[in-house]
């Protein structure tokens, strides 16, 4: 029985990353209508940057710096992905983010090489809770995911900037007419989402080393979590992420580790198919 809970615990930690990426995707989608295929890149970039910075400074500082740099890169991605007003459709933006993801792999490969990188976790000593080992890193990841969900929901509902983001999604036309700049809104959404994903990446790397090619699977897992909430619900993306992570770990533990990705993808396909009831293609 303890092995079962062990898997659940590990699953929640990996699931936290999926949840974080999923919520980031939801934020960007709600503000801009764009699904950012390159979201996973932000997690990888932050992890790799932390690895580089940590050679010269304490871990905490390295992590903060890496997050800031990644957020900055995210704003650049925003400008490129949004494209030209009126000329660039949402689907074109998606393809642009695909191109960005590919290009980013080249840059990361050139800068950091092929070898997956990592750095020390917060603490090496796991807590023993009734026979189940819980790494502090896992706990932090889960807490960050929960906190992010709370903060994002409050942000979108209670702050004027968050409400401006929602407004831009509800009616881009009216948002423009009251003076909101849609490109600025996209930049803000991407920056916040990028920073959030970066934090996820920074916390992930000690447990699962990241490399230039990790971005794709992270994005897909994040998307699966986001689909759980129809791409619009922060809370459901959080839940979906945890569920997906636990499911994957159970498959790794009880079935075959080679199937963990496949199972996750199948779940996503089923979710997408399920969501197709009552949705219209536009």
């Amino acid at each position, binding site marked *: 029985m303890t092995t079962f809970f062990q898997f659940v615990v590990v699953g929640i930690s990996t699931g936290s990353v999926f949840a974080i990426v999923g919520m980031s995707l939801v934020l960007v989608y709600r503000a801009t209508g764009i699904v950012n295929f390159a979201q996973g890149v932000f997690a990888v970039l932050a992890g790799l940057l932390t690895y580089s910075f940590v050679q010269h400074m304490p871990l905490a500082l390295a992590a903060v710096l890496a997050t800031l740099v990644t957020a900055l890169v995210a704003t650049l991605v925003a400008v490129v992905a949004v494209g030209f007003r009126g000329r660039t459709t949402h689907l074109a933006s998606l393809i642009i983010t695909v191109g960005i993801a590919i290009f980013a792999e080249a840059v990361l490969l050139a800068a950091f090489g092929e070898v997956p990188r990592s750095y020390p976790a917060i603490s090496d000593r796991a807590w023993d809770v009734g026979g189940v080992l819980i790494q502090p890193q896992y706990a932090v990841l889960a807490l960050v995911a929960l906190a992010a969900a709370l903060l994002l929901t409050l942000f979108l509902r209670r702050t004027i900037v968050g409400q401006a983001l929602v*407004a831009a999604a*509800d009616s881009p036309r*009216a948002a423009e*007419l009251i*003076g909101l700049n849609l490109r600025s809104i996209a930049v803000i959404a991407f920056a916040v989402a990028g920073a959030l994903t970066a934090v996820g990446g920074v916390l992930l790397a000690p447990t699962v080393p990241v490399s230039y090619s990790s971005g794709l699977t992270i994005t897909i897992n994040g998307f699966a979590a986001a689909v759980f909430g129809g791409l619009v619900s922060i809370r459901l993306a959080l839940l979906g992420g945890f569920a997906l992570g636990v499911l994957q770990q159970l498959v790794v533990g009880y079935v075959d580790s080679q199937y963990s990705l496949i199972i996750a993808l199948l779940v996503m396909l089923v979710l997408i198919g399920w969501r197709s009831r009552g949705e219209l293609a536009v």
Partner: protein
Amino acid sequence: MTLLALEDVVVRYGQAVAVDGVSLAVGSGERVALIGPNGAGKTSVLNAACGVIRPAAGRVEIDGRVLTHATPAAVVRRGISQVPEGRHVFATLPVEANLLLGAYGRVFRLEIVSSTLRYLRSKRDVREQLERVYELLPNLRELRERPAGRTSGGEQQMVAIGRALMARPRLLAIDELSLGLAPVLVQALAEFLVRLNEEEGVAILLVDQSAALAFSLCERAYVLETGRVVLDGASRDLEGRSEVRSAYLGRGPDDPA
């Protein structure tokens, strides 16, 4: 004093010409209408005036300043607010948030520091303006917490108008006031607009398919047909003119909208 002046404005969508050299003017305190059938280019004229679309040619002057290629935010800052066709309220946000955004929308730019300062400085003025809008449109006060999407069509029209008023415009441009609303409601809104104009001094530019509504509400009107102004003048002179009837392809100003 002329608040808004369009001179020979041309709007193109690719190869198609939607607005073919339109000139019009709205003076302060006036009520002016722009009428014409569907597809005449009325909304495009409005969008060109409000900075949503760049004219291919011509000039847009707001309050004496040339603002032909301005952003919508600049236009709002200069005193023109638009209530769009179909209302376009922010459906998932409460009514009060809709109104507040109407005031703050033009405050935010990417420079975080200056935007934050502007936001903090304007908070009290915005609260005052909010109260004023609630006085003008008392129904909105009761609906302040309701998500705007869960209000009726007429209420949404009020939300959209209230939102536009939050920017303290000197000219309120309304696109298709009567769209999808019961005549009783339209009448009430029209009366409200007249009061707004006479008591608060807000100029009105009404763009509508319904010539009857336009003539009853506005002193002056421009008749648009396939992108060109075919007629303009005082409403009482235009009513019943055959050109108006033909501009609507058989529908006269007294036919139901």
